[in-house]
């Protein structure tokens, strides 16, 4: 089977499951709403401007919501032991990884499409003015987040206390990417241009390539049956 086709089949399968259940997506949206309300009570949006707290709110909301959906992507495979089915499928583990990553990235994008306008409304910032660069930044950083999350979700799903372990695995390794996301977004929200954040964009790209490369090479060892 063609490698690319295998990637698309895995991604398609996950997205189809997600589309039919709509459980995960609903849960995520509701969770992000709850986070926004918590933010309101901890940061008091009426006093703080979006220039100072906007980037932090955006990225914490994306990460906390994202960690739920990423963790789910392999835990759902445990029901009826479909993880074994994946293992037995005669396709390259790297294709399974990339397929899962694509599906997760698409789910995260869908969540962000709803979440970002919601944050813009609650924080009172003119989204249209920043839409272009903000879209690019969010896309770039979401790719890396889901690449790392997909890889570690496969580990967490197979260990005890995986739900708790999962964020502990992802967040420390991902700190450079979170830093890059928040710093560059802050610059953009303070009327900076993309040219001002080039070092951060380079860093995020390096991180994405590293994690995707590592995932493609190492995923077979994670999927292996013991």
């Amino acid at each position: 089977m063609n490698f690319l086709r295998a990637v698309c089949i895995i991604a398609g399968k996950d997205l189809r499951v997600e589309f039919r259940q709509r459980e995960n997506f609903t849960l995520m949206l509701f969770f992000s709403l709850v986070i926004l309300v918590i933010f309101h009570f901890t940061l008091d949006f009426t006093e703080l401007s979006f220039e100072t707290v906007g980037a932090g709110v955006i990225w914490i909301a994306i990460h906390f919501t994202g960690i739920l959906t990423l963790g789910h992507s392999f835990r759902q495979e445990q029901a009826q032991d479909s993880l074994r089915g994946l293992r037995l499928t005669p396709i390259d583990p790297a294709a399974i990884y990339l397929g899962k990553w694509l599906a997760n990235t698409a789910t995260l994008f869908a969540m962000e499409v709803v979440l970002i306008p919601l944050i813009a409304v609650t924080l009172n910032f003119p989204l249209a003015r920043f839409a272009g660069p903000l879209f690019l930044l969010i896309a770039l950083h979401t790719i890396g987040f889901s690449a790392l999350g997909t890889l570690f979700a496969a580990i967490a799903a197979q260990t005890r206390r995986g739900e708790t372990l999962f964020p502990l695995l992802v967040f420390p390794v991902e700190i450079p990417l979170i830093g890059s996301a928040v710093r560059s977004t802050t610059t953009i929200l303070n009327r900076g241009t993309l040219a001002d954040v080039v070092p951060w964009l380079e860093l995020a790209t390096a991180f994405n390539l590293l994690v995707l490369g590592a995932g493609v090479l190492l995923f077979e060892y994670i999927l292996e049956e013991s």
Partner: protein
Amino acid sequence: MLKSLENGTTPFRNRGWFSRFLLGFLAGAMILNLWLIFFYAPTERQMGEVQRIFYFHVPAALLSFLAFGLVCAAGILYLITRKRKWDLLGHSAAEVGVLFCTLVLLSGPIWAKPIWNVWWTWEVRLTTTLILWMIFMAYLMVRSYAENPDQGARFAAVLGIIGFLDVPIIIMSVRLFRGLHPRVFKVQGGGGLDPAMGRTFMVSLATFFLLFLYLLLERYRLGCSDWETECLMEMTERQTVARPGILEESK
């Protein structure tokens, strides 16, 4: 391993002469090192006595980075060869590395409080060390929460490799914020380290290296004994299943 056990030999039971020698040598080096640090090395003019923490702090930091490099290398070797010894080496190095890293994170603030007037600051090396410490704590956790040792070894190897490859990116990202760590060895326009301080530091580094080596070896040996016990239990189980009366017979 199983084969040597079945032949009745236990490869790791005796502590080797090397380990005893190392322990003795280490004890001597430690005493010498303490004398050098507290009596031989001159007191730093501006920072005063507290600067002596440098002789503990920096070697521990360097060795914890070495340990994390070892974890990564051992992880790669384990995934390629599947030899248990590489996994044991990685595990031992991670534990000793986390220990040294903890020492760094504890000794740093003791120095920073009188000098920088804060216990903690989000400076390049501090932040990097803290993140590394967290990654390798996660490494140890993955191991203990895995369903079986084999799975734990694979997962930990993956995490160790990614964690170590992440280091340059962490440093790069933290460096994009500004830093204020003292640069001891490269001071622009002269100055630098007093020769006596330099000698003391080198002895410190050597002593810490010996300590690191000793702890690593002992931890490795402990891991081997663990594994040996596991194999023995497995063997007994197999024999009990094959000949149900064997345990009573041997009594």
